């Protein structure tokens, strides 16, 4: 077609031309979408449709609120990174998927739980034997085996410890472990001085005994070391992969850095990581480390789990982690059936959860499952024990604690979900007392007023000045909700006649104040690194004061310290439990903080992939998940019906508008 004829087609003496052209353009766009679109499914196709045996290829679709910064197991220390690392790497030990009260460790890459032997000078030796025949993922970095993943040995486990001590790796837990394995600190300092880490040099205290045996020699007892062995930091890493994926150009091609191209031994290997969009994992064909447990699940689940007990893992073939930063699209995709599970955010809470904290009828009808899980965390308000007013006045602290109505706070700010904290230990941690009643945490205003009078401030009045006693809470109010919460906290304490000043800080300033001790009251929270009481009571151990430690209250009790030192090196036993109760009693009596809550989260699962494990400390739990692909397909079709009438209506509307415009212009410009 010539330019002229094109012109005559598109540029006639038509006064409404500009209105028509975009309509055509839009129609072309819509048509293009209809032809290419295949509906509203946002996910790229799975790698395969069927397995080799003809059964359906099973893909899990999950969302991550952000892209992980690093998938290096020796570096990542956030739940986001661990969600993926836990699937790609296996640690020496792991948490049992069903046993959460108390939490229980089971072997993973290790053949059994580590054997504890007495060490020289009162220390301890942990001997870890690896399972034979376990392999890393296939990857081009294994040049010696032509890309086939090689067997995991104790050298790989020792290599993980060496990487922790390499200053270039920036391992965040080095400071914790080097206290017990001083060889790590020495290696770190040598490498820092030389500017290079010598990986040929063995680290004293991390001994390779034979091909499958590793010994950790601790200079002092530290039973909690076993929990670190269940975290990704100690996961064996192939040296070939770290050296191969160096982020440099080789033969015209830039290799990614190791932290963006993990090569592990987990149930899934990384197939694609499109930063800001998608992480695609595929089943590791040679995965042999664990099988589906044969016991430990609730009796009610017998019918579901009995048939898969002892089966090889993973039960699914592919996992898509879609990066969805905003809550609204995450919820929309779940509603459409394009995500298998999601949390319940505040925007949709009322439409999903009823007043009785049950699923609403609409979602019950869909077969959606609602789960309520307690985090192994405790939130509390720290009193500065070095403050001249608060630190020397126990009745004043007790009065503040007694006047704080946490039940009301939970009702207002967490839809009544959270559990009121009566003790520093959260549920599931050894030593947690289910029916424990903390006298200072029972809201009783009359009692609180008696206490404040006993503290020397009747009706909150400071006798020296004749004015209400003024206390300051340092806050970081970065959202309307946190502002409302700090107002609530202020009001709770002001019920005693005090004057509470809220001092707003930037997050960094707040951190500085906590470290320097320039505050009176400050909010804080702690999530368990591992489910041991030591990981919570150490928050009040006096040598653990900031800036090196986390005893932000600067609580210093010789009795507490003595009991803590005894308790922390003990294995779980009735004697240890007795000491834990004594520690708890001391904290209740001295009241260095107002205990607030243990957070509870709601989550939803689609009917085709009911949840397996509720263990919040287990990363990589998707290896136990099962998916009913046929049911998913059926429900997605049912929930995503595309009616044709809106398109017809739209075309009619556009046609009508054009017709009217033509009519109008002809009439007025004839």
């Amino acid at each position: 077609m010539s330019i002229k004829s094109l012109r005559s087609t598109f540029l006639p003496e038509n006064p409404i031309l500009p209105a028509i052209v975009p309509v055509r353009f839009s129609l072309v766009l819509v048509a293009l979408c209809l032809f290419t679109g295949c509906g509203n499914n946002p996910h790229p196709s799975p790698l395969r449709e069927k397995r080799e045996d003809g059964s359906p290829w099973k893909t899990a679709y999950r969302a991550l609120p952000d892209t992980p910064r690093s998938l290096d197991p020796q570096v990542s220390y956030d739940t986001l990174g661990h969600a993926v690392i836990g699937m790609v790497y296996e640690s020496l030990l792991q948490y049992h998927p069903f046993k959460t009260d108390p939490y229980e460790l089971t072997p993973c890459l290790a053949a059994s739980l580590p054997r504890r032997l007495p060490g020289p000078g009162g220390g301890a030796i942990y001997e870890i034997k690896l399972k034979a025949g376990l392999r890393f993922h296939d990857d081009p970095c294994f040049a010696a085996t032509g890309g086939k993943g090689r067997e995991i040995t104790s050298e790989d486990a020792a290599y993980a410890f060496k990487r922790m001590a390499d200053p270039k790796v920036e391992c965040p837990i080095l400071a914790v472990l080097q206290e017990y394995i001083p060889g790590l600190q020495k290696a770190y300092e040598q490498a820092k001085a030389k500017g290079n880490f010598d990986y040929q040099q063995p680290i004293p205290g991390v001994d390779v005994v034979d091909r499958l045996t590793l010994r950790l020699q601790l200079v002092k007892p530290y039973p909690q070391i076993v929990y670190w062995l269940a975290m990704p930091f100690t996961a064996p890493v192939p040296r070939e992969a770290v050296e191969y994926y160096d982020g440099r150009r080789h033969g015209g091609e830039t290799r990614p850095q190791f932290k963006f191209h993990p090569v592990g031994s987990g149930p899934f290997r990384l197939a694609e990581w499109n930063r800001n969009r998608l992480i695609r994992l595929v089943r590791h064909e040679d995965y042999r480390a664990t099988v589906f447990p044969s016991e430990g699940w609730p009796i009610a689940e017998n019918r579901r789990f009995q048939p898969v007990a002892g089966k090889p893992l993973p039960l699914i073939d592919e996992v898509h982690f879609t990066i969805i930063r905003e809550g609204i699209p995450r919820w929309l995709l779940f509603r459409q059936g394009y995500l298998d599970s999601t949390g319940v955010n505040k925007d949709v809470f009322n439409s999903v959860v009823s007043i009785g904290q049950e699923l609403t009828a609409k979602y019950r009808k869909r077969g959606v499952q609602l789960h309520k899980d307690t985090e192994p965390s405790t939130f509390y308000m720290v009193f500065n024990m070095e403050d001249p007013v608060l630190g020397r006045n126990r009745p004043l602290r007790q009065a503040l604690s007694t006047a704080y109505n946490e039940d009301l706070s939970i009702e207002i700010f967490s839809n009544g979900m959270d559990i009121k904290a009566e003790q520093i230990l959260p549920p599931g941690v050894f030593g947690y007392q289910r029916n424990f009643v903390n006298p200072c945490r029972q809201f009783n205003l009359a009692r609180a007023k008696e206490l404040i009078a006993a503290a020397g401030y009747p009706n909150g009045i400071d006798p020296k000045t004749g004015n209400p006693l003024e206390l300051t809470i340092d806050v970081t109010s970065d959202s309307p909700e946190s502002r409302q919460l700090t107002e609530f906290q202020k009001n709770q304490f002001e019920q005693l006649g005090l004057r509470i000043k809220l001092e707003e800080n930037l997050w960094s300033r707040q951190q500085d104040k906590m470290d320097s001790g320039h505050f009176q009251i400050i909010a804080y929270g702690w999530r368990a690194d591992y489910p041991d009481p030591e990981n919570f009571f150490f928050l009040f151990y006096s040598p653990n004061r900031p800036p090196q430690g986390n005893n932000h209250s600067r609580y210093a009790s010789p009795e507490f310290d003595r009991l803590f030192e005894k308790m922390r090196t003990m294995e779980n036993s009735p004697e240890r439990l007795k000491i834990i109760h004594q520690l708890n009693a001391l904290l209740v009596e001295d009241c260095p903080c107002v205990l607030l809550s243990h957070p509870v989260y709601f989550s939803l699962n689609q009917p085709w992939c009911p949840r397996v494990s509720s263990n919040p400390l287990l990363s990589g739990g998707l290896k136990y998940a099962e998916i009913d692909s046929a049911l998913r397909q059926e429900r997605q079709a049912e929930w995503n019906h595309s009616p044709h009438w809106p398109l017809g209506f739209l075309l009619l509307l556009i046609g009508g508008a054009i017709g009217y415009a033509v009519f109008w212009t002809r009439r007025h410009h004839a």
Partner: protein
Amino acid sequence: MLFSGPGDIMLNYLLRRILYLFPIVFGVMLITFSLFYVVQSPRAMALQILGPKAPKEAVANWLHNRGYDKPLFFNTAPGKPPLDSQFFHYIKSLAIFDFGVSDATGEPLTEVFKRGAIPSLLITLPSMLLGLFLSVSFSLFLVLVRKSLIDLTGVFICVVLMSFPIMDYVILGQWLIAIKTSYLPAFGFNLEGITTAKYLALPVCIAAVAGLGAETRLYRSIFLEEINQDYVRTAKAKGASPNRILFSHVFKNGLISLITLVVASLPFLIMGSLVLESFFGIPGLGNLTITAIRTSDFAVVRAVVYLGSLLYILGLLLTDICYAAVDPRIRFQ
């Protein structure tokens, strides 16, 4: 005077405009650097990236590796060059377009920007073209039917469209097109040939419609200004039809201002759309910026602000050049 002819005047004008860039860009860099320290100290950033439980040594190591432990402006330590400070390193690296690596992930930022530019352009360019097409057509139509009830209704619709924030369009679009009718995905992106259109259609249409009200009103006023000019009266006196006057005279003359506006926005297109990219999961530069702000990735923020300011200034410069090219009076001012 260095230049004397008309071409020289233009060149002189151009050079003057380019020289203005330096103090402006320096000011932007100084403000960004200072604001960064007001909002977030490097230590707080390290804690945010390494996790609040990160030991002090890990934090110190992290700061040292990135040069955040150097003095802010001048190094007064004995034996150290005075310009061995964070600010001068920052100025130097940006001036030579060495963006370094992301503080959060350690990825080279040049790679990150290259990766984000295409998805951003895939959203912003079609949005701009579609929006331009719709708004010019609509505004011309309103000019054609000016002072009638249709014109009044059209302007009213434009005001209504302008009154809603883009978030409302996003929510409405996702609800209507993705949830209720299931025509297009509510979220996602996949750069795979023609199927990419499926992911782009909804955000592109939303962006075009969201800007329709304001743009139509602006273009309508441009065309109305033209239609009251003397040459239009002359054309009418010569017996030209209203359609011919509108499309052959008014449209062409109005196009000059219109092109100037469009050219000004062109360089900025590469920076993407913060809201749309974030809500539709488009892995472009807008999304990258939001993420960098959220995660306190100062290396990304400073590079984005620097690039953004350069592109913005470039847009303004192009506008000035366009104006000067079409209107000689500006060159002589």
